[in-house]
């Protein structure tokens, strides 16, 4: 099983929606982790977290926006950026076809939504990735949108918040994808050197070229509970080592224990925590620099 398959498995497990049924009282789902039966409105009121086991189901970008940003405050930017097929990449499935499928399934044009909004009235530049769009992979469009987001935030002197969920760089755009790592890292560094705040939130899963570029370069790194967070896929590591991995390896808890992230924050507390961080760090007195 490839890393992407493995991730997709996790993803499907994570979407209670996969197991959605209608009964007279309403629509219900079954938590893929604990088996608990949950009514849809209960899921919605509980931040898409299983009330039984605390599993954090995957979110679509606009669900995330509605949970994290002030109501109606978000305005997308660069919505009209669309992927091309510069390598005319033809694997088992042509890239064009993968793109069309992803666009159809998610209703998005690419694996990230970027724009400006408010968190507890603080204006922020905001980007949220969509793992459902070709495993949240970063190709030219994701790289460009992330870079423009940081540039726009610099122009406006606002903090940036990103929510990552990604399998890594997008293979089908080859080296153009790898170069987005350099491009986004450079943009983050400029924003950093301007003294501005960047908060990066890792959701399940965050890995590969996204974790090894912009997403790791924030002032504050937050992970959702029980998220997969790691550079290499566990299958790759198992093949390298020819042994099974320790329990809890590459989870947000392990990342915290090994000093890689600042904190794990449950989805229900994410908005408050983020707002508090921005209140402390987001608008410094320039005089002290």
């Amino acid at each position: 099983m490839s890393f992407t398959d493995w991730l997709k498995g996790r993803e499907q497990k994570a979407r209670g929606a996969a197991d959605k049924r209608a009964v007279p009282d309403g629509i219900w789902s079954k938590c893929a982790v604990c088996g608990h039966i949950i009514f849809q409105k209960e899921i919605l009121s509980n931040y898409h977290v299983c009330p039984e086991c605390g599993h954090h189901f995957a979110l679509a970008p606009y669900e995330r926006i509605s949970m994290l940003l002030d109501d109606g405050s978000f305005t997308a930017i660069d919505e009209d950026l669309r992927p091309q097929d510069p390598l005319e990449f033809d694997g088992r499935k042509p890239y064009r076809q993968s793109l069309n499928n992803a666009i159809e399934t998610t209703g998005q044009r690419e694996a990230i939504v970027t724009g400006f909004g408010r968190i507890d009235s603080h204006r922020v530049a905001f980007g949220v990735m969509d793992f459902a769009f070709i495993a949240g992979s970063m190709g030219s469009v994701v790289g460009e949108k992330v870079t423009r987001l940081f540039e726009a935030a610099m122009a406006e002197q606002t903090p940036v918040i990103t929510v990552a969920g990604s399998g890594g760089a997008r293979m089908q755009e080859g080296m153009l994808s790898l170069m987005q790592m350099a491009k986004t890292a450079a943009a983050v560094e400029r924003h950093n050197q301007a003294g501005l705040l960047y908060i990066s939130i890792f959701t399940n899963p965050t890995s590969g070229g996204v974790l090894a570029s912009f997403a790791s370069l924030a002032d504050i790194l937050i992970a959702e509970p029980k998220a997969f967070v790691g550079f290499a896929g566990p299958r790759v590591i198992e093949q390298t080592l020819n042994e099974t991995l320790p329990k809890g390896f590459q989870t947000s808890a392990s990342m915290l224990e090994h000093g890689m992230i600042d904190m794990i924050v449950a989805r229900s507390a994410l908005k408050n925590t983020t707002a508090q961080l921005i209140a402390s760090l987001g608008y410094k007195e320039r005089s002290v620099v």
Partner: protein
Amino acid sequence: MSRRFYMDFERPVVELEERLEELKKHPAAHQPDIAKEIKFLEAQMGRLKKRVYSNLTAWQKVQISRHPERPPFSAYLDNIFHDFIELHGDRSFGDDQAIVGGLAKIDGRAVMVVGQEKGRGTHGRLKRNFGMAHPEGYRKAGRLYKLAGKFGLPLVTFIDTPGAYAGIGAEERGQAGAIAECLRTMSSLPVPIVTVNIGEGGSGGALALGVTDRFFMLENAYYSVITPEGCAAILWQEKEKAPEAAEALRLTADQLVQLGIIDGIIPEPLGGAHRDPQTVARQVGDSVIKALGELSPVPAEQLKQARYDRFRRIGVFSEGKESDERANRSNV
């Protein structure tokens, strides 16, 4: 003779080479008819080599880039640089032998040089972890980048890695973060940076040495977002499709020049760099020296801006109303 390592597609060349060597060793090698055959075979050899090596597929180049006799970073260090003083350690955990760096002079100019070293021989390869660095290797690299920045020394980097190491300790000590920090540091370094990919350019683990002002590749080196095998396993669901993946990924030097991602190709002798390491090293040296000469007069702020712009413009996408599409292909 001890059998040399060769790749499948090289078999006819190697067989002919072996026959030639045998003939030359023959006691009667000076007799006219044998001498004549030797001459004939040598002519044939030239044609054969050209046929075999002139139109290599992407996958064949990947194989050459991994040739066990291919000159590693240390060969370039020895041949191009002088007065090398190795600087060790990340100052917090270890000294990763997969990345070697230090102060050196090239053509009389003091530089910081950092490269991935695959090692030679079984012992050497193990010691170097086959050129696959752990986080401490990237942290050492980052420390040397900053040292170069502090002292205004140009930075020369050499890429040759299948990728960053994928292992438990590497993950636990923050492989992704260590690579990201290298990207960040290079992107804002106030000194000229010149990079040569001398073999394998495996993904983020290679890019951590490649946020640069000039990027050269040896003719048979590759640079890829993922190894062909990895790509085949994921997209074709079978590793045996690696040759197809290599083709699809556009990972060869000439394809990357076309994509606007690298600046120049340094030629190799027919068959690969290991067939004439000295000449290849000399040419690599010439390219580095020339690039340093061009970049050194440029003020730091301008260098940094140009480096930012260099990566800033990479990417292919369309923008605007679908009916009125304006594609960004500035780099192609």
